């Protein structure tokens, strides 16, 4: 298992190395179509809130969403034959992520099989309703209703299976056609080296991807029309980088998950919640410690604009009081005779430690500690204001928590937090997303987005606090 882990690590390292050096075309094609397609849908949830400041296009915002295919009907197994250790993401990853997100499916295109099963569900409901309506003397009808239901359901499934197969065949035919096109383009004299073969496969993937997606065509046309526009090219590069990032992340996610299942499979006794936590922590630590710096470097490149916005706000508000970002007066001490210290300093100090850890789980714990310290400080300050304050615990709701957290983030003076949290969101394990860690991370991201917005319209936005 150790050797396997080592191999995985090497592999992940080389991915990251590649992608930080130069973005190549590998990324957009290697992501399964479903995944990249949902790039467009991913934009939606963020973009819907009109006054958002974070670049809504960042697909990283919700990669787990991204991994749930929008058009399942287009999903297919990569059929180029070279199965073993290809750099392309195994479809199981998406299937796995997909099951988690199964509730999304209702809004997306269903595969024929899924359509049929929905249809059958309806049939069955109707059948049950009919049975319920039968009067005692109509009981003989029951058998015929049952038989007809079974027949109908079976037919639906058979038809669906046929459709699914046809679809699959069509996709494979297309792939073959594109493969030939690639072969023509790279028509080499003599034997084909492994490298050339890889290039061909890559090109086939590009062609295939372009069949499914509009944007590469648009970009090409755009660049042709404006050959002198250099910013266009840099935009394209950063776009490609994003895809590369998704790919690297999915690979990492997949590998660490594989390791975890391997762990649990080989040692069945470990399959309890607390052992699972321990295993995951161990794997993560071994896995991410050597990788995190490189990973964050990549995230920082993609999130440059957000970090810049954060920095601008940070400079603008460097001597702001908690009240300036909307913290209610009763939740911080007004007299400035705190001798070199400032409100919520302990929380700020804690948050500053976040960048010093290299393992997602530890970073999450750091964020949780920061929020708890905020609550503790807030209680303390409230007691200073209220004379008869009976020691009530934990009365800080989100209405108070977020302004304070924004203040703490400002004081932290670390734009890298933006990228760190973006990365954390991708690597937080499903099980933790719903829990306290997930809540704290979400709050942190919300506060960071607010801080980023401060230098644009935030100043007058914060006024609404005092009305």
């Amino acid at each position: 298992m150790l050797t396997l882990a080592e191999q995985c690590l090497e592999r992940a390292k080389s991915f990251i190395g590649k992608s930080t050096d130069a973005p190549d075309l590998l990324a957009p094609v290697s992501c399964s179509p479903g995944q990249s397609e949902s790039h467009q849908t991913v934009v939606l949830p963020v973009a819907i809130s009109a006054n958002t400041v974070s670049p809504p296009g960042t697909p990283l915002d919700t990669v787990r969403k991204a991994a749930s295919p929008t058009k399942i009907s287009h999903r297919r197994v990569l059929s180029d034959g070279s199965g073993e250790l290809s750099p392309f993401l195994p479809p199981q990853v998406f299937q796995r992520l997909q099951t988690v997100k199964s509730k999304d499916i209702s809004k997306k295109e269903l595969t024929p099989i899924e359509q049929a099963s929905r249809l059958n569900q309806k049939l069955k409901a109707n059948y049950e309703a009919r049975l319920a309506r039968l009067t005692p003397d109509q009981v003989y009808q029951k058998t015929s209703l049952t038989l007809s239901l079974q027949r109908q359901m079976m037919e639906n499934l058979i038809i669906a299976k046929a459709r699914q197969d046809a679809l699959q065949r069509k996709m494979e035919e297309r792939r073959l056609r594109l493969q030939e096109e690639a072969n023509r383009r790279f028509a080499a004299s003599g034997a084909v080296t492994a490298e050339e073969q890889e290039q061909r496969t890559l090109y086939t993937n590009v062609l295939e991807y372009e069949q499914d997606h509009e944007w590469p065509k648009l970009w090409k046309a755009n660049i042709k029309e404006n050959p002198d526009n250099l910013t266009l090219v840099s935009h394209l590069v950063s776009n490609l980088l994003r895809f590369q990032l998704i790919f690297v992340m999915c690979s990492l996610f997949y590998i660490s998950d594989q390791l975890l299942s391997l762990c649990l499979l080989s040692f069945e006794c470990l399959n309890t919640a607390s052992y699972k936590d321990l295993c995951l922590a161990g794997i993560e630590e071994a896995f991410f410690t050597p990788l995190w710096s490189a990973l964050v470097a990549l995230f920082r490149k993609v999130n440059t604009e957000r970090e810049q916005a954060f920095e601008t706000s940070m400079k603008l508000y460097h001597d702001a009081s908690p009240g300036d970002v909307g913290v209610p007066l009763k939740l911080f001490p007004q007299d400035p005779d705190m001798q070199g210290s400032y409100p919520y300093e302990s929380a700020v100090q804690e948050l500053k430690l976040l960048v010093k850890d290299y393992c997602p789980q530890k970073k999450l714990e750091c964020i949780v500690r920061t929020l708890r310290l905020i609550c503790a400080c807030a209680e303390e300050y409230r007691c200073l204001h209220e004379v008869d304050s009976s020691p009530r615990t934990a009365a800080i709701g989100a209405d108070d928590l977020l302004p304070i957290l924004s203040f703490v983030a400002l004081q932290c003076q670390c734009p890298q937090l933006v990228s760190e949290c973006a990365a954390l969101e991708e690597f937080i394990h499903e099980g933790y997303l719903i829990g306290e860690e997930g809540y704290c991370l979400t709050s942190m991201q919300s506060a960071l987005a607010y801080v980023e917005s401060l230098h644009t319209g935030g100043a007058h936005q914060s006024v609404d606090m005092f009305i």
Partner: protein
Amino acid sequence: MAAGGTGGNSGKTYSFKVVLLGEGCVGKTSLVLRYCENKFNDKHITTLQASFLTKKLNITGKRVNLAIWDTAGQERFHALGPIYYRDSNGAILVYDITDEDSFQKVKNWVKELRKMLGNDICLCIVGNKIDLDKDRHVSVEEAESYAESVGAKHYHTSAKLNKGIEELFLDLCKRMMDTAQAEERMKGNGASQSASSRRGVQIVDDEPQATPAGGCCSSG
């Protein structure tokens, strides 16, 4: 692991996420605080519990883990609303019965949630502060008929008098369990069967649904 009730078939534990939405000052935090006071008798209290609360419940013999996520009411924090409510099984939308405006905000939230999450999420619209009924500005009929029109359930609560809160959460849990069970049944039915390839028209049973009890099977 995932939201929405996973686990073994017999000793299953449901895991639900519930977001708490509503304008500032409508009493969201008080509601949650009341709810933990009622049930949280063990000493496992985190300082965060007014914002983020987890509860283990036992409802009709089934174990339920409830995670309640409070959100900030201020408009300026709404940009990241979607990351708060994603994967939610339920939403509690609170308004203040003395504040018409807060009811409008609830309507906005309903629109957004339905648009982003569809019908899978159980919505509760909660008129809080019924202890101030003499200053009521949102009529009971209006609120209830609105709730019905969007497939939500309406509740009246008073955090101050500790009224209606326990019922609200219990009812919501039961609804979320129903939804999760319906989803499971659906998944169970999707088993594919091997068969020879054959093309044809799929059978859709379009029986008129609105047949009242007692009527015979007249097909349109």
